[in-house]
Structure formats: structure tokens, C-alpha cells
């Protein structure tokens, strides 16, 4: 009974979240997919300028950075995917030019670890809540010993009452 109430609450929360997401996406209209310009901007933010220190291609005014942005624009307009462009540039300039950690290999752990930690934390919270609920439930129920005590007390009280009556 308690569990089904919990499930109903979770379902309501999910339904509200889904509605919010639908309205948010609908509000974007036709721009669900990024335009070529947006893709170029996003990609230019993902590469470090090879000539400068600490600046992305998008931030730098260096000729080489501007050239990379021009090449990215050309590749995007030519139909290349983001992954293909990333691969082409990191293949040439080396992985160190990428400002986004790789999704595979040891570096890919930076994506996996937060998810794993989050899941473990959620599982721990769920376990604690269930245990707490069980304990509270157990405290609310009388044991046979308790019942026996109460019965004995009541019986004694009835006897006393009957004796006191004139």
C-alpha cells in the first residue's frame, strides 16, 4: 500500500517532468537541430589554438586559429559530422588540441565516474530510506509480548474495578 503510493508519486513527478520537457522543446520550434553556424561555433570551442596558450580556436585571433575555424566551416558545410571533424583535427594536431575529453580509453573515465558515483549515491539513499521506512513500520507494530503485557494490565484493571464496586 505504502509502496504503491510511492510509485504513484514517482509517476506523477515523471509525468510533470515530461510535460516540462515537451513544452521546452516545443518552444524551440524549428531549431531542434543546430544550424551549421551553431555547429561551427560549438566545434571551435572544443579545440585549443595550437599557436596560443589557453585559448580555444573560437577565442583566438591568431591566423592559425582562424584558419582552423575556416576549415571547420568548410567541413561542416561539406556534410562532415562533428565526430569526423574532431577525428580529422585531433589526428593532425594530436589529442592535446582537444578541449573535450575523449569518450573512450582512460580519459573516457571522466564521463563514466560521475555517472557511477551518482548511481551509487542514489542506491545508497534508496537503501537508507527503505531501511528507515522498515524501522518506522516495525516500531509502529506491537509484538506478542507487548500484547500480552497490555492484556495482563487490562485484566488487572478490570479486576480492580470490579473489586472496588460496592
Amino acid at each position, binding site marked *: 500500500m505504502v509502496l504503491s503510493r510511492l510509485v504513484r508519486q514517482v509517476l506523477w513527478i515523471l509525468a510533470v517532468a515530461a510535460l516540462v520537457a515537451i513544452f521546452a522543446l516545443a518552444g524551440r520550434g524549428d531549431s531542434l537541430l543546430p544550424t551549421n553556424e551553431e555547429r561551427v561555433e560549438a566545434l571551435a570551442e572544443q579545440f585549443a589554438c*595550437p*599557436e596560443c596558450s589557453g585559448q580555444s580556436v573560437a577565442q583566438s585571433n591568431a*591566423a*592559425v586559429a582562424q*584558419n*582552423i*575555424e*575556416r*576549415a571547420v566551416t*568548410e*567541413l561542416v558545410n561539406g556534410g562532415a559530422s562533428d565526430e569526423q571533424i574532431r577525428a*580529422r*583535427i585531433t*589526428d*593532425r*594536431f*594530436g589529442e592535446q588540441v582537444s578541449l573535450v575529453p575523449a569518450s573512450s580509453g582512460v580519459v573516457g573515465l571522466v564521463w563514466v565516474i560521475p555517472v557511477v558515483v551518482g548511481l551509487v549515491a542514489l542506491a545508497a539513499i534508496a537503501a537508507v530510506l527503505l531501511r528507515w521506512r522498515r524501522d518506522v513500520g516495525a516500531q509502529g507494530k506491537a509484538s506478542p509480548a507487548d500484547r500480552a503485557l497490555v492484556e495482563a494490565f487490562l485484566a488487572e484493571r478490570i479486576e480492580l474495578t470490579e473489586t472496588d464496586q460496592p
Partner: protein
Amino acid sequence: MGSARKASLAAAVPLVILLALLSWKVVNRDEVEGAFAPSTLDGKRAPTLEGTTLDGAMYSLDNDRGSWVVVNFFATWCPPCVLEHPELIKFAQRHLATGDRRVVSVIFGGPQEAALARTFFDRNGGSWPVVIDPTGIVAVDYAVAKVPESILVAPSGFVYGKIRGGVTADALDAIISEAETMTGGS
């Protein structure tokens, strides 16, 4: 004690000056002379290099197969590029008759850069092809991080190495001759 301290100071001053000079030399090495440095292209087939030259002709690196090719990325606004230009002329003229070692330059940018390069060559000389890379893709494929950079393409069409910074004719010949000795001319 005082004299020992003076002696230490006297020894330290030239040492500091020497270190400062060495540091300056290291920092400005690319400005003075190119550094033969490893690159991600080493040992790989040279990326496609095709395009229109400043003269309006079509150039393809494949047509130079069988010769060593110095693929030189430059810009007219870059001082080391201007400095190395006479050396490239010397290198090109040295091998003009045999054709065994050639130069091709690449500029990246639009029509404005092309016009500036045309004026630059008219003024300073140089008769090798200058390919215009309007999209920047050639420079990306050759991993050009800073101009000038020169990529040495072997007669086999594979990249032998990259020189970051300005080149000299003698240095180019020395590197290529050494490569020929090591690889048997291919």
C-alpha cells in the same frame, strides 16, 4: 669573507648573462632558424595538396612524385617567412636544373591574402608554384600550427619531417641528403 663574496658575485654575473642568452636563443629559435621537429604526419602519405596557384594554374603534389618537395606554408605578414624567402630562392635555384628537389608554397586565406602574396613574389622573386588554400583544409591536413612551416615530402610521396620556423637552403639540403643516405634515396 668579503673577497670570497665578491668572487662569487663575479662568477655569478657572467653565468646569469649566459643563461639569459641561452634562454633567449631557445625562445626565439623559431625566429632565427627552423627546428626539425617530429609531427603527426611523419612516415605517412602526404595529405592531398591540389589547388590553384597564384598564376591561375592547377597544381597537384602527385605530379611532383619522384622529387623531394618542400611544402612551405607562409604568410606575407610573418617576419620569419620574409627572412627565409631568399633561402628558398637559393634552394630552388640550386636544384632548378635537376628538378630533384622542389619547392611549393601554400598560403591560406582569401583573395586579399592571394593578392598580397602575388605582390610579395613579384617584388622578392621566386618562381615555384604558390598554391592558394582558401578553405584552410590543406593547412589543417598538414597540421600547420604556426607559419612558417615546411613539410618535407620524399620522392615516394610520404612525409619525411617538418621544419617549424624559417629554413635555410643549406639546412634543407643537409636534412634531405641525410634522409637519402638513411633511406637509400627514396
